[in-house]
């Protein structure tokens, strides 16, 4: 009571205000020594407020009773008082006896009582008010978050409704700027240039225009997107380090750097956050600027849960954009393909459905068949066949064969809209989708002209051949009868001359035959028969036919064939090949030598070799032997009586049999001409 009484005394003759402070209602008062903060007096309000007992407090220091929640702040208060300051209305938190922390508005000042320096600290509990205030702040934050959530919801709904991405992000940015009390900002998508370097392209940008020119510029940027590629900036830092960047130092160097165009409001504070997609890929940056008082971490805390949604929206927009690009590319490709198909006029390109009905029809089809597309779509393909073909169900058969074999190429008559006919080459291909037959591609070409030309050519060749052969038959016949002694013995010199005439007429016949064969081989019109051939018979036929030539030349002919050797092919044509090779060998063989035909069987193949003892062939000549009109020596044709087509014909016939032909020779060591046929092994 000693101090209290002294205080009361001091109040009685001292300051009215001080007395009121001591006696006034809810104020808790605590008097402590200024040096060590030892409690010398407290009033009842203090005890009521803290729940302490007087005895527990008096004589102990403020530290001992853990009065201040924040000891540093408490110490600062006391230092201020000791320095002689009057502390007014400082907010501090104190602790009750039970340890509960409460808010207080604290005043304090130093007094000297009987030469003792004391500090009088008054504590007004404001916990309820603080709670109410916090509640209000929380309410406001909740309100903001709700608004932001609504903005995001709206953005998501707009995204789902596939509204314009620009307005979606503009709306979102406007809300974010408003809610964070920022002046302006942007939402940028992270892209990479052709070199892989990242840059930002704005999806939304606050309008900061100030006059007409800047408004036009802003409009352009908002429409096309503004690109930010300078990494030496605040947004560059966000992009590079993928972390939020907050800068409130208006005077700092960083705020002035990069990205602010002339006429743009100066940057006072900046808050940039990275936006990540679902797979943690950096997809965008949200940049906000010029919040009064700057940006702080509570704002970050507030925004943080909402940012993934922004990231997802950018990601979804990107995915939709890519999809749309792919779709555009597909449409463009389809357009070009359609143009291509429509511009083809020489071929009728038709799609049929699985039942053979026309599903698409190009300009070439219209040109070939005479039907416009709208008239033919849905018609069965059999409408394009002549009646007799339809009656025999050829169209259905064609579809069936194509479906079964994967392709059907054929030639035949087709019917135009005006009932005229054309000769067509058609390729019918089944089209499958996921293993299901979804239709047929039908390519038709009118080859009437080509067919007529081929027939004319064929008839011409036939006629020329016939017209040449007729006089040759007469010459050959007359000479043959004389030379053969049908009219009695003639002088030797006459026989020789007749023989020369006869052999040259035969040479002319061979030339005509060779030209005819070559023409047919080149036109692919030499139809080969395919039967079983006894190799012994084949060799015997060829050799027998040449004995008349070998005898006078003094060349012996020999055949060496396995006893039972059967092959498949066109016998007449293979006799022709063998005859040609053996007659060549005879021509180049010296008298007294021999020409041998050997037949060897190997696995899946059979080889015919014609071996002579002639002069052989220079290596550099070997490669051109089988070309057309090839005579190694320009005098050969005259000296040996060849057309220069024989080996080319042999090669073509053998190759048409699926075989190959060749020669092995060395000058001075004869030649071996051979051909090999592939044989199916049973």
């Amino acid at each position, binding site marked *: 009571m000693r101090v209290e009484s002294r205080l009361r005394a001091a109040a009685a003759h001292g300051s009215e205000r001080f007395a009121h402070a001591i006696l006034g209602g809810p104020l808790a008062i605590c008097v402590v020594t200024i040096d060590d903060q030892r409690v010398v007096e407290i009033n009842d309000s203090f005890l009521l407020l803290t729940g302490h007992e007087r005895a527990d407090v008096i004589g102990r220091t403020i530290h001992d009773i853990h009065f201040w929640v924040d000891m540093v702040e408490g110490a600062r208060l006391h230092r201020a008082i000791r320095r002689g300051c009057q502390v007014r209305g400082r907010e501090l938190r104190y602790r009750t006896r039970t340890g509960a922390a409460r808010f207080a508005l604290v005043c304090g000042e130093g007094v000297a009582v009987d030469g003792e320096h004391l500090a009088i600290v008054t504590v007004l509990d404001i916990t309820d008010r603080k709670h109410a205030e916090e509640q209000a702040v929380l309410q406001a934050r909740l309100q903001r978050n709700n608004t932001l959530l609504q903005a995001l919801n709206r953005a998501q709904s707009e995204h789902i409704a596939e509204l314009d991405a620009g307005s979606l992000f503009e709306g979102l940015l406007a809300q974010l700027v408003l809610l964070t009390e920022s002046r302006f900002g942007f939402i940028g998508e992270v892209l990479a240039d052709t070199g892989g370097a990242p840059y930002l392209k704005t999806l939304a940008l606050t309008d900061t225009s100030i006059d007409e020119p800047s408004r036009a510029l802003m409009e352009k940027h908002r429409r096309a997107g503004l690109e930010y590629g300078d990494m030496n900036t605040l947004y560059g830092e966000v992009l590079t380090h993928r972390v939020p960047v907050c800068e409130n130092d208006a005077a700092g160097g960083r705020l002035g750097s990069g990205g602010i165009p002339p006429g743009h409001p100066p940057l006072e504070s900046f808050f940039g956050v990275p936006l990540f997609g679902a797979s943690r890929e950096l997809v965008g940056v949200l940049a906000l600027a010029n919040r009064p008082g700057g940006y702080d971490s509570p704002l970050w805390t507030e925004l943080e849960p909402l940012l993934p949604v922004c990231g997802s929206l950018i990601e979804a927009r990107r995915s939709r954009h890519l999809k749309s690009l792919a779709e555009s590319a597909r449409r463009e490709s389809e357009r070009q393909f359609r143009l291509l198909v429509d511009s083809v006029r020489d071929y009728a390109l038709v799609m049929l459905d699985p039942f053979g009905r026309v599903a698409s029809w190009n300009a070439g089809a219209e040109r070939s068949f005479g039907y416009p597309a709208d008239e033919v779509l849905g018609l069965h393909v059999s409408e394009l066949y002549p009646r007799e073909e339809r009656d025999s169900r050829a169209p259905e058969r064609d579809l069936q064969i194509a479906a079964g074999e994967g392709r059907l190429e054929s030639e035949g008559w087709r019917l135009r809209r005006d009932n005229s006919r054309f000769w067509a080459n058609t390729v019918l291909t089944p089209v499958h989708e996921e293993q299901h037959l979804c239709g047929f591609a039908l390519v038709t070409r009118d080859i009437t002209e080509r067919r007529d030309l081929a027939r004319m050519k*064929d008839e011409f*060749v*036939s006629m020329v*051949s*016939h*017209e040449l*052969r*007729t*006089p*040759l*038959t*007469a*010459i*050959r*016949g*007359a000479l*043959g*009868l004389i030379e*053969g002694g*049908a*009219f009695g013995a003639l002088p030797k010199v006459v026989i020789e001359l007749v023989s020369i005439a006869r052999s040259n*007429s035969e040479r002319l*016949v061979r030339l005509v*035959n060779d030209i*005819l064969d070559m023409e*047919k081989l080149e036109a692919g019109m*030499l*139809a080969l*028969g395919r039967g079983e051939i006894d190799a012994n018979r084949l060799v015997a036929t060829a050799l027998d036919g040449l004995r008349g030539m070998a005898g006078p030349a003094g060349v012996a002919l020999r055949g060496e064939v396995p006893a039972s050797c059967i092959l498949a092919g066109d016998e*007449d044509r293979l006799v022709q090949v063998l005859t040609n090779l053996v007659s060549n060998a005879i021509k180049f063989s010296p008298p007294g030598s021999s020409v041998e035909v050997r037949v060897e069987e190997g696995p899946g193949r059979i080889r015919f070799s014609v071996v002579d003892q002639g002069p052989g062939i220079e290596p550099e000549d070997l490669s051109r032997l089988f070309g057309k009109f090839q005579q190694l020596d320009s005098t050969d044709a005259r000296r040996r009586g060849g057309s220069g087509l024989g080996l080319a014909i042999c090669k073509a016939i053998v190759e048409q049999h699926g075989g190959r032909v060749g020669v092995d020779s060395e000058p001075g060591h004869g030649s071996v001409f051979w051909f090999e046929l592939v044989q199916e092994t049973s």
Partner: protein
Amino acid sequence: MAERTALVVDDEPDLRLIASMSLAIVGNWRVVEAGSGAEALVLARTGRPDVILLDVMMPELDGLATFALLRQDPVCADVPVIFMTAKVQAHEVARYRGVGAAGVILKPFDPMRLADRVHEILTSGSR
């Protein structure tokens, strides 16, 4: 062996002569000549030869038409006919064989072997 008669039909007199000489001198055939299809039909009916060598390419009544008419005539329907042709392409030869001829001899032929070829065809019934 009784003398056999061959009817040689060709619009080319030279070829007719060569064929006739070949058959007559080398093969001892009695040969009757016709210069057209129409003449051949008459001679075949009246002479009823043992074989007819019939050229294919003739004006008016060609070899194939003559052959068809010969086949319709009961008097000479069974006389073997050998076509002689300078049309030597495989499909042409196959066509002549296909109508039922005894054989086909291609021009030019070896006159010293013509009689043998005819004999071979008549005895083997092919080619």
